[in-house]
């Protein structure tokens, strides 16, 4: 057992924290208010720091880093702006990683490298209006036509949708197959004819992050855009989400950390009954429980990241990390608003935004309920 971060990991934290505090934080409230995605700030500059493909080898445009470094990067961005955190997480874990895991050498050259280098933004399109937790209910179809596939259907809630250049899209390629059989994965460029963007979602939180509907109307793509084998899509989606959960867990961790620090600062300054409210046990116990839950979640997140980089199985562990961190984020942000009292409910203080942002972490990339199913199934199947 060795719980210390490496010098490199510490350096990444310092670098990302400095960038996050100096460049990302100042506009976080305004971007939230105006639902404004800032590509240059939230992705291009993040990529300049080498984060867009941090876990991929250098020959594929990455930084050759490990998953703990990646988790730290998402955590630090999310500590000041959860929208920026999820932009990176969705891009790397969901857009680029499936190409790394399942792509051909040619696909890696054409799609992974630009994403890892940060010249292209990635996105992942699995969810549909009637296929949320039950991804086996996919109704988007891809039909083979000579050397092409023709896609028809629509996808909803696609993070980075509308601005991303590269989309991993799941569609049913075998009409007769049931549920999770007969689904395949495709790599689709933004400007492909027949591929358009539908409604942009108006959201409670992570309002500076893009969430968009994708529409496919006789969208023709070359056969070589099939990712992995035909019919292997469900497996690709699940493997991808195993890794994605590390990113979202790290995002939730960062939100919780940011709210916790805000609550500490406020409680030490705010005076009532002639003393800082931090001197009251009622407030101290809230801070102690925040510290405790965050520390426990952080260890779960880093453990799943460590396992991912060590080549160990990490599906159950990343589900635990995501479940624990996201529920911690919701709890901590709610309590952080409480510590701020009436001020916490106003937009004058960032905890109001953080609480709205935290909620989504219990929902996307597998709801808390789905995480429990994953964990429960892993245990009871032995």
């Amino acid at each position, binding site marked *: *057992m060795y719980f210390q971060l490496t010098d490199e990991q510490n350096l990444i934290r310092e670098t990302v924290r400095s960038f996050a505090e100096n460049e990302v934080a100042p506009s976080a409230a305004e971007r939230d208010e105006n639902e404004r995605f800032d590509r240059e700030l939230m992705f291009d500059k993040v990529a300049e720091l080498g984060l867009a493909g941090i876990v991929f080898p250098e020959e594929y445009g990455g930084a050759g880093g490990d998953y703990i470094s990646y988790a730290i990067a998402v955590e630090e961005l999310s500590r000041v702006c959860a929208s920026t955190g999820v932009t990176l997480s969705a891009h790397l874990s969901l857009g680029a990683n499936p190409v790394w895991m399942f792509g051909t050498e040619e696909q890696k050259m054409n799609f992974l490298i630009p994403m890892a280098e940060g010249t292209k933004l990635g996105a992942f399109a699995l969810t549909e209006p009637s296929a949320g937790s039950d991804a086996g209910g996919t109704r988007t179809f891809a039909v083979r036509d000579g050397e092409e596939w023709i896609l028809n259907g629509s996808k909803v809630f696609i993070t980075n949708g509308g601005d991303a250049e590269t989309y991993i899209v799941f569609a049913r390629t075998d009409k007769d197959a049931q549920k999770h059989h007969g689904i395949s994965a495709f790599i689709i460029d933004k400007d492909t004819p027949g591929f358009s963007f539908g409604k942009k979602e108006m959201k409670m939180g992570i309002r500076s992050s893009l969430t968009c509907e994708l529409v496919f109307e006789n969208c023709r793509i070359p056969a070589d855009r099939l990712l992995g084998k035909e019919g292997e899509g469900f497996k690709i989606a699940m493997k991808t989400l195993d890794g994605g959960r590390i990113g979202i867990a790290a995002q939730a961790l960062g939100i919780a950390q940011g709210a916790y620090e805000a609550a*500490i600062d406020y409680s030490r300054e705010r005076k009532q009954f002639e003393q800082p409210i931090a001197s009251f046990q009622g407030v101290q116990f809230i801070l102690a429980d925040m510290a405790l839950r965050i*520390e426990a979640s952080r*260890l779960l997140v880093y453990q799943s990241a*460590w396992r991912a980089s060590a080549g160990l199985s990490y599906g159950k562990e990343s589900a*635990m990390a995501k479940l624990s961190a996201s529920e911690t984020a919701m709890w901590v942000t709610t309590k952080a608003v409480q510590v701020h009292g009436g001020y916490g409910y106003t937009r004058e203080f960032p905890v109001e935004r953080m609480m709205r942002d935290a909620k989504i972490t219990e929902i996307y990339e597998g709801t808390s309920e789905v995480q429990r199913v994953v964990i429960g199934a892993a245990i*009871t199947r032995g």
Partner: protein
Amino acid sequence: MYLDLNEEQNLIRETAREFSQAVLAPVAADLDRGEAQETFFENLRQLAELGFMGLNVKADYGGSEAGVIAFSVALTEIARACASTAVSVSVNNMICEVIQAVGSEEQRHRYIPKICSGEFLAGAFALTEAGAGSDPAAMTTLAVRDGDDWVLNGSKIFITSAPYAGVFVVWAVTDRSAAKGKGISCFLIEAGTPGCIVGRAEEKMGQHASATNELLLQDCRVPGSALMGKLNDGFRIAVSELAGGRIGIGSLGLGLGLQAIETATRYALERKQFDQSISNFQAIQWKIADATTELEAARLLLMNAAFRKEQGRSYAKEASMAKLFATEAANRACYEAMQIYGGYGYTTEFAVERYCRDARITTIYEGTSEIQRLIIAREVLRSYS
């Protein structure tokens, strides 16, 4: 980061697991009913022979020098089988460590090898008093200098292992005029010393095999050499040594929680209702998922605290976090496990009933959950000021 056990730690865990399952588990229910005390003693002797009484103690004093992580994983394995045995082992380790940390060379050689070897079945930690629980500095037991000797008067309560302890670490006020907590000292008192009387045994909800008694000090005269550490430095010693004990109690809680939820999982796979295993129902799966997740987080907090202690870094906050989280998670896991068993779980036919009773004390002794939160908050606020 590297989050696996090393070879030696794995070996210790395996040894603890094998011994616990083969020797401790079969008699745990008997011990819980207050039977077979000789067996309990024999088990403590065997654990001493295996090196479990001084896991983080130097070989010079008869210890195993295996470290704090090994201590934690061993405690967890022992607690899976018998929490009463586990708490005895945890306290013995704490006594050895406090003597090693602050005792004189003579005191170390005189007592630690006896506890490590099993010659003393136990050492006891006598801090708590009727009016001094979470606030130990409020103690009234008094030690008065008389020539070269000290004479102690007062009474201690809730003393684990008192009837079979060979030595007591006793805290007493040595300077009544000093500010609160500044006039307390620590003494080593051997069992059988005139005036050192083991009093009434508590009747408890759980952990029945582990004795919990009053300790009366009635004109108890000890030589000047019984003073341990510096005069009037006792409160600081108590506070810093309890941090190490918390890793032990957290690890004990973890063992109970894991055992409860794992046995309940096996039960859920076998138990059929509505024509299927109840493990098929999400309501049951989620109990298992939540308990497993919480206990995994608890394990990591314990390992982190143990790692920091091994590295010689500050670990008080981390030990409090680990103890608080592990013991509360253990209680939830035990009660959810009982719920999975349904009515059967409430009977003594299944061990989960005992796990629940045994787990309940873990959020109380060696610092209540409330005290852990105080410590954590104090450390956090200090680090931001």
